[in-house]
């Protein structure tokens, strides 16, 4: 999961870094900082909205569900792992 998160984060980071660089070159740093501030605020609001829409409790309705999913994933991984 951590590997997937790292891949996603790096995949997102490249276009974001490049576009922020281009924006700084075009608009100047102060405007980009205002834009960043607005973007972070929007992200925060979206996070709260998403969290309320899909509360953690619903995700972990029963520990059995999670355990079963974990077992399933481990079983799927088992034959492909090379020690």
């Amino acid at each position, binding site marked *: 999961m951590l590997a997937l998160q790292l891949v996603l984060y790096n995949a997102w980071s490249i276009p*974001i*870094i490049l576009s922020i660089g281009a924006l700084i070159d075009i608009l100047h740093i102060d405007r980009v900082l205002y834009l960043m501030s607005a973007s972070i605020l929007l992200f925060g609001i979206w996070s709260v909205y998403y969290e309320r829409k899909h509360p953690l409790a619903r995700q972990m309705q029963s520990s059995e569900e999670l355990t079963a999913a974990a077992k399933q994933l481990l079983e799927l991984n088992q034959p492909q792992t090379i020690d």
Partner: protein
Amino acid sequence: MPVYEHARQGYGIMAIAQSNKGFLTLFKKRNFLRLWLAQLISMTIFNATNYALIILIDSIVHSALMIGLAVICFSVPAVLFGAPAGVFVDRMDKRRVMWVSNCLRALVTLVFAVLLLANRSGMLVLLYLLTFITSAIGQFFTPAEGSAIPMLVDEDELMPALSLFNITFMISQAVGYVLLAPIAISLLPTITLFHIQFDAYFQLYAAIAFLYLVCAGLILSIPRSGLVKRNENKSEPAPDLTSQTLGIINNMKSEMQQGWSFIRERKSLLLAVIQLSFAGVLILVIGQIAPSIVTHLLLLPVNLMALVFAPAGVGLVLGSIILPRFARRLGKPRTVLIGNLGLVLATLLLPCITLFAQWINPRGWNTGPLLLVAIGICMFIAGVALDFVNIPAQTAMQELTPNGSKVVCWLCN
């Protein structure tokens, strides 16, 4: 970027702090001391080159886009080569991997330094390429060193040894980014020999190439017999390196697909992954915009960039120590929201403070110590706020992931 990458795992610090009893005993072991010194020097100079590269690119092209490309060049190899390098190193002689990787980095850094003597703006692509190569080679040194540690210490010393490894990782970032590179670039004078000018950047990169060779020497001074795997079972034939590497890559691909479908079905996990990635990207973005903040917003020399980095780094470390107490009381959604609001405040205050300073003192507005203190406080807030997003998201990700509970328990201890 390694400095940020490790800061993302900030809450390992508590675990580190608990196991610092046996460091002196470890330093008495000569071979371990040599390995540790090689780690300290190589990581410090690697971070120093990353800092120097950002300033160098800014001095050549004054473009945030090009600085962004530099950040990508030294941060992406960790993802591209991290896993295959681990497999490769696992099968190879660790001592050889370590000294060869340091020699190669010395060679590449020396070529980099020589290129700086030519027309720099025409060499940008090569400078990026060499940075990428240096970072990629470094991916082989770190796992080799990690797996060499158990060969040099006793079983009961392993925990403090690994803690020391992590502490050194953080110290090297602080020394490389905040002290070594900024001081060297500021203080090294330009020397003219045979009508060729050797400026601070050339001297720094040449010194770094030499220091990589010192690291290689330190590794070579460890006897080959000292780096032997304990309880090595030679009777079991291992699969060949190529098929093992291909197997790992295929395995990773299928695990990614399974992981993605697993995440998509669990919305809280998806949110945690997005929040964690968001914090990670922001850390990289801070590194990218730091020169622009110093040169374009504050109109100060680019080498004062450490003023931006240092408070943010201190905030990240302190935040990771104090956060668990707050996070338990507040709960994850509120903690993340506070983190986001802190980041909004910090990014909003930076241009506002400069406007205010210009309004109060139109002539010497950027030289007042109060302005620098205020900018430092903003960056400190940004560092702490990043922890408020990062740590709850990482904890949620581990709690909601199969096998994650073990990691969470370790973090709680």
